């Protein structure tokens, strides 16, 4: 049967697509999908993949200086996991018809973004713990719902990623706990780090719902399942007791338990700062992209050699 001869009418395809979404079933790469859905997904999956890869830099900077061999092993393995997450996610994006090379070009040319949190610098070893606890913690809040996202390869990648992220989060928190049992300097280092990362972590959930124009459509498509503010609240409610257990102060004078809501009230981050960082003027945007660009272009000859070798081998086998 020729597809061209008997095309399924687009309206029917769209109906089927909507029905799959409505059943909370998964859309698979070979299924028909609206072009806007595909575009939204490519953008989201790519941005997520880029975040994993760029996210290797701020923590990777401390592998060489990890203050114990055990922490060195933990950190090296964690950053390696991030590379692995990047791999799964680029593979998921490839099922939508876009290659890793293309996406990398979009990243280094600045046409695709990554999570703004990685445009903040790491300034002490405590940041390794804080990134695990707060940044990975926020990422998990964002990502757990994505395990049930409508696009199959993305949802399955997220299941694996979330499992590893939880592990990283516990490791980060455990580092901070250990440091808080150490010297006064170490405790001060932890507090200083938390002071720096608290607000940027809250920004990871994106702008407030009333300033987030794409949320509605993403939710309708099952690409997104909770609003930014819902997830932010969940993160705060989860984190405040952990901060108490740790013995650090979260730098928000408005933070208080609201008996009525059964949730914490909290202040608003400086959204102007978020927009400046998104626009490219954050403390590390230029550095992160320059690093990725350098690594990618310095590796070009290796990738070319591998292609040339593979081509020659397959020619040899055919001959």
């Amino acid at each position, binding site marked *: 049967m020729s597809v061209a001869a008997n095309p399924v009418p687009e309206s029917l395809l769209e109906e089927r697509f909507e029905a799959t979404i409505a059943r909370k079933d998964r859309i698979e790469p070979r299924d028909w999908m609206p072009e806007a859905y595909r575009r939204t997904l490519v953008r989201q999956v790519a941005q997520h993949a880029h975040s994993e*890869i760029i996210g*290797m*830099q701020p923590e*990777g900077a*401390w*592998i*060489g*200086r*990890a*203050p*114990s*061999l*055990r*922490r*060195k*092993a933990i950190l*090296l*393995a964690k*950053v*390696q996991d991030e*590379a*692995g997450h*990047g*791999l799964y996610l*680029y593979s998921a994006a490839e099922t939508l018809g876009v290659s890793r090379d293309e996406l990398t070009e979009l990243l280094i040319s600045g046409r695709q973004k990554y999570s703004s949190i990685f445009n903040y610098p790491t300034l002490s*070893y405590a940041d390794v713990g804080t990134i695990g606890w707060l940044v990975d913690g926020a990422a998990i809040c964002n990502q757990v719902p994505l395990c049930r996202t409508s696009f199959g390869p993305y949802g399955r990648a997220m299941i694996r990623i979330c499992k590893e992220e939880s592990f990283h989060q516990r490791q980060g928190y455990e*580092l901070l706990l*250990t*440091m808080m*049992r*150490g*010297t006064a*300097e*170490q405790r001060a280092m932890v507090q200083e780090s938390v002071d720096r990362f608290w607000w940027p972590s809250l920004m990871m959930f994106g702008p407030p719902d009333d300033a987030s124009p794409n949320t509605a459509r993403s939710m309708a498509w099952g690409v997104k399942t909770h609003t930014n503010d819902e997830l932010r609240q969940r993160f705060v409610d989860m984190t405040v007791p952990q901060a108490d257990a740790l013995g650090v102060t979260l730098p928000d004078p408005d933070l208080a338990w609201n008996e009525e809501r059964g949730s914490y009230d909290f202040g608003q981050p400086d959204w102007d700062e978020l927009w400046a960082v998104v626009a490219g003027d954050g403390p590390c945007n230029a550095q992160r992209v320059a*690093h990725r660009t350098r*690594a990618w272009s*310095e*590796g*070009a*000859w*290796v*990738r*070319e*050699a*591998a292609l*040339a*070798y593979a081509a*020659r081998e397959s020619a040899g086998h055919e001959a």
Partner: protein
Amino acid sequence: PADLATYCLMLGDDALVLSQRLAEWTSNAPDLEEDIAFANIALDLLGQARLLLARAAAADPTQVPALPAGSPVPDEDRLAFFRDGTALRNVRLAELPNGDFAQTVARVLLFATWRLALFEELARSRDAVLAAVAAKGVKELTYHRDFAGRWFLVLARGTEESRRRLVAGLEALWPYRAELFATHDVERAVAGAGVGVDPADVADTVDAVLDRVLETSGVERPDVPPRAGVLGRAGRDGRHTEALSLLLAEMQSVARAHPLGQW
């Protein structure tokens, strides 16, 4: 026990220092697969280093640096983070700057082939700990060697550029190869006691493996003389290249800033 400890430091420092170098590739490799592979090798070597440093400390606690009273720093970290360069016992091959991807591939090939041959013998050590470390290490090192060997072939037969770089990288490292097989007094002593391995005894095995890789790749064995040490001494005696002290300056910076710290 002093000799056993020193011998464990030699093998442990080799792994520690090369692990540190390979970890520098993190977020810098040509593609994600190689980034992950170098991290894997670095992790394996780091694991070997930890076991060997701990064994050294157990065999001769006097070789473990002293810290202020009340310091909670464990022995493996005292050895890793509180020794100066002249106390490290690694061969110089492990400490050289990475160079490019081709040079790193050549280094991992030379290093893993040599260490694999050592560990295959060491798995029969009379010291149960060393024997166990070696037995576990054999599997890891086989993977390291095969990874490097595969890339060696790819680069040799890939493009002109990759071949040029591979040959240059191999020639830059080759002068440090003789040091791998020069028997140190401590190695001679532990080998005599059936605890360690005399590296000279594995030279032929290693050569045979390398020659096979070189032949398959169509790369000639470099014809360059060995790099001298200082007054006949090199890495095994703590006489290193200038690169090591800078590597340690970075590696030890946080630990040294907090000698009473818990991590």
